[in-house]
């Protein structure tokens, strides 16, 4: 009896321990997780949490790391191999989970961690050829001895950090999801860069445009989706001075495949992705030296997309923002130059409709030949479930993304995906060289290695030069080519050649005294190549150029003020017209209040502004009402841009698209404006009654820095003005992910920076979200830059990485 009872309780106790030692669905392994000796409690830190002396395998010489008051590491190494090793180690120390999670996302492996909720996402990643692209990039890295050393040492550094970890040291998210880090590999550096390429290139809308063409006709297309909106200055205006002889290809009538595409696209990146950069010539600054600014607008997330770092070795002294998981500094400055990027927006993606010979899909038609297709079976592991196997067919164009088994909507349709990022490229070398560039010539040389995602690279040097270069590898296109789905059976529509680097859009020290870019159209109309894109920006760029044009004797504070500028040019150009459409006699009380607030509004989306809330609510109701013909539930279609929409309201109010299809009446633009106004006011009233407060813009917009796992508890809300189409481009979840200002003075370069997050990715660290408030207020941290003696006087922690004694 005793032994039976003993056996029962022993079994019960063991069963409970077992069930508390593993996770169940979204419930963490509670015993392990809550254990104060090893579980999440051990992630609590009261200070920098830096281990002062670390012995590591694989270092050549001792490396000194100093952490300044923002926990930015200043790394001093005796050679470049140790420098990249230390960058890997130090970055992993603060951001390991994020680095791995982002590369798992890139590779389509999220189901492994969170279960089958991510299966569709994972399949998409694989079918876009993310790993195919990364492996091609890796081959290219490994064939270059310098690039190979860089990624090898960076990888070793990360793995050296991973090797020091016991369960209690693991980042919180591993404990929460109950898994452990795997070793880093060089291909992960490539995946990370391809992830960024995906964010910046996947705004493409070939299928949407194809459907629009079929449904509305060419004339309407040109009205609704012009290649060029022709507003404001292009990034580079060098009219009449393109002296090279352009490459040409045979002209060929464009053939768009028959029928509408029935594809159901799964992911569509937010249009709020964008960036600003500019450089002011010394003739316009107080010190006589150039000023350079950059703020990339990306998803606002915790841990942050960027990790600030200072790298110093005998060959380099560079500081700025790095991407955790990629070696070198991406946007920053060294002793001689500074640079920054904005997305070039160009169309680097095409979809080819494939004709397979039969259902086996072993062969597909290309000109008059049946070419063999290559099939790859992808295993997608799923937490708590058996693996999912996905067969992906590769053509010479690239992987077939949409087909009978994935979102094609119609089993006869198969679309192969051609993406510039699939091609081998040398971005690692580009940044390695850019970090070391001493002059304009060095910057030009480094950028020759940069293929994609195409960027507008701004430049300024201590010597006094400013420049802009739209750099990337661009397919040579015939007019209109790339806007629509292409016929995959004819090689004539394939990318025949690329625009040579020497023909790319670039200029230096223009007469106006500044260079700038904000994702607008790249170049004046005399540039001899056809350019197309999803959309080009129409407002930020004009505001920036208007402000920069007026500046004289400018200082860094003027640059900061401009980055934080909340002037809503779109509202200034549209609201007076919108208000004219309203019938003031039919207002209820709420509408009358709204009308008065809007009339008194100064067009600034400041945190305290209520006018901004009413305007944005009105606009958000208006756009879908106007483009109600474009119901994405029926066919993939893309709304025309904000600029074009407003232009049509002003110039073409009787356009048939203003008619609301659900009503029997025939509406014109003013009718739609009135209806949208009522809806916008209702939205605000609903919000007011839920929140019990007035619609201040910062509250109504509610800028939100969300944790990558979308866990509210690990995320932060912040009071912030601005919005998309505004220089301070903070919408709800997108915005300036890094703000940098550099003054390139001959007596010593000075720089400032801030980002909406913190250096540590650990939610238990005081450095997890400590910059967010300053970011929200538009203030900056001075970035300490100098030799180890200077820096060592301004630090909160020091760390010595030395060779293992064995």
């Amino acid at each position: 009896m005793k032994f039976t009872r003993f056996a029962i309780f022993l079994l019960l106790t063991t069963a409970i321990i077992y069930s508390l030692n593993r996770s169940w669905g979204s419930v963490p392994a509670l015993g392990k997780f809550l254990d104060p000796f090893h579980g999440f409690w051990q992630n609590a830190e009261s200070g920098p949490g830096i281990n002062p002396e670390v012995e590591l395998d694989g270092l050549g010489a001792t490396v000194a790391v100093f952490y300044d008051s923002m926990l930015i590491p200043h790394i001093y190494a005796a050679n470049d191999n140790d420098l990249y090793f230390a960058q890997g180690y130090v970055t992993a120390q603060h951001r390991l989970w994020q680095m791995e999670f982002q590369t798992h996302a890139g590779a389509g492996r999220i189901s492994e961690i969170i279960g089958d909720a991510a299966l569709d996402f994972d399949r998409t990643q694989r079918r876009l050829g993310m790993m195919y692209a990364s492996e091609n990039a890796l081959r290219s890295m490994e064939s270059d001895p310098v690039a190979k050393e860089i990624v090898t040492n960076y990888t070793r550094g990360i793995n050296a950090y991973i090797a020091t970890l016991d369960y209690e040291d693991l980042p919180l998210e591993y404990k929460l999801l109950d898994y452990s880090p795997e070793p880093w590999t060089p291909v992960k550096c490539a995946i990370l860069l391809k992830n960024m390429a995906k964010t910046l290139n996947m705004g493409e809308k070939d299928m949407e445009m194809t459907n629009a063409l079929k449904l509305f006709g060419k004339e309407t297309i040109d009205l609704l989706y012009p290649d060029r909106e022709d507003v404001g200055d292009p990034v580079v205006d060098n009219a009449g001075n393109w002296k090279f002889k352009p490459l040409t290809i045979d002209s060929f009538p464009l053939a768009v495949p028959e029928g509408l595409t029935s594809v159901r696209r799964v992911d569509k990146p937010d249009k709020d992705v964008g960036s600003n950069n500019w450089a002011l010539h010394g003739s316009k600054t107080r010190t006589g030296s150039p000023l350079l600014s950059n703020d990339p607008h990306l998803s606002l997330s915790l841990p942050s997309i960027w990790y600030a770092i200072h790298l110093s070795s005998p060959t380099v002294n560079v500081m700025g923002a790095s991407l955790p998981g990629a070696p070198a500094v991406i946007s920053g400055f060294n002793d001689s130059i500074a640079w920054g990027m904005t997305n070039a927006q160009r169309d680097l993606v095409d979809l080819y409709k494939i004709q397979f010979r039969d259902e086996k899909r072993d062969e597909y038609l290309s000109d008059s030949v049946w070419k063999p297709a290559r099939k790859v079976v992808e295993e997608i592991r799923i937490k708590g479930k058996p693996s999912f196997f996905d067969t992906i067919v590769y053509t010479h164009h690239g992987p077939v993304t949409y087909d009978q088994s994935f979102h094609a909507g119609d089993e006869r349709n198969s679309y192969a995906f051609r993406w510039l990022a699939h091609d081998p490229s040398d971005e690692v070398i580009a940044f390695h060289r850019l970090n070391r560039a001493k002059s304009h010539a060095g910057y030009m040389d480094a950028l020759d290695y940069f293929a994609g995602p195409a960027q507008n690279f701004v430049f300024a040097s201590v010597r006094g030069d400013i420049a802009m270069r739209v750099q990337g590898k661009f397919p040579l296109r015939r007019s209109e080519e790339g806007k629509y789905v292409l016929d995959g059976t004819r090689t004539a529509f394939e990318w025949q050649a690329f625009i040579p680097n020497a023909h790319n859009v670039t200029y230096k020290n223009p007469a106006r005294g500044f260079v700038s870019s904000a994702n607008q159209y790249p170049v004046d109309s005399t540039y001899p190549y056809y350019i197309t894109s999803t959309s080009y920006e129409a407002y930020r760029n004009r505001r920036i150029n208007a402000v920069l044009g007026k500046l004289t004797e400018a200082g860094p504070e003027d640059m900061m003020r401009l980055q934080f500028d909340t002037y809503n040019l779109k509202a200034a150009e549209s609201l007076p017209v919108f208000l004219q459409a309203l019938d003031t006699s039919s207002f209820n009380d709420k509408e009358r209040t709204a009308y008065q607030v809007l009339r008194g509004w100064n067009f600034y989306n400041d945190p305290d502004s209520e006018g901004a809330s009413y305007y944005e609510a009105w606009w958000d109701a208006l756009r879908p009402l106007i483009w109600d013909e474009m119901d994405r539930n029926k066919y993939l279609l893309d709304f025309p841009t904000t600029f074009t929409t407003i232009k049509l309201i002003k110039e073409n109010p009787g356009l048939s698209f203003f008619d609301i299809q659900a009503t029997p009446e025939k509406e014109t633009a003013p009718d739609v404006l009135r209806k949208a106004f009522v809806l916008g006011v209702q939205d605000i009233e609903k919000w007011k009654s839920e929140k019990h407060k007035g619609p201040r813009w910062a509250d109504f917009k509610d800028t939100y820095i969300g944790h990558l796992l979308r866990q509210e508890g690990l995320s932060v809300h912040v009071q912030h003005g601005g919005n998309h189409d505004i220089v301070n481009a903070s919408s709800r979840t997108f915005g300036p992910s890094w703000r940098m200002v550099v003054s390139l003075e001959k007596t010593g370069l000075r720089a400032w920076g801030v980002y909406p997050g913190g250096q540590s990715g650990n939610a238990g660290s005081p450095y997890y979200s400590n910059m967010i408030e300053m970011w929200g207020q538009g203030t900056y941290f001075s970035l300490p830059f100098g030799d180890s003696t200077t820096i060592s006087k301004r630090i909160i922690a020091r760390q010595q990485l030395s060779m293992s004694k064995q």
Partner: protein
Amino acid sequence: MKFVIQTLFIMILSAALQALLPWWTMAIGAFAVGFLFASNGWRSFFAGLLGVGLLWLGMSLFIDISTQTALTERVARLFPTKTTPLLFLVTSLVGGLVGGLASLTGSILTYRKPYRW
């Protein structure tokens, strides 16, 4: 008095074990003390519950107070319970439950009188 000593023994032995080894080794400590003290089922269970529960409560409070961390609140918001007092309570209960059961299981082998439940 014996109960208090038994509870303290569980606390100390469990702390020593799990300071170095995985969390569940504290169950071995509670089991051993339960075996040695040979109390009845309820007493053994409560000695384990209190011994490990208080140990986990004390350690988590110590970490929370000494680091002044925002982590406790952030993690509390990940759970449906939302508040930090409940997070401390859940932490103590999870540890305490395992400690209690282990202690009880150990006592079954050595407790002389018949169980009455």
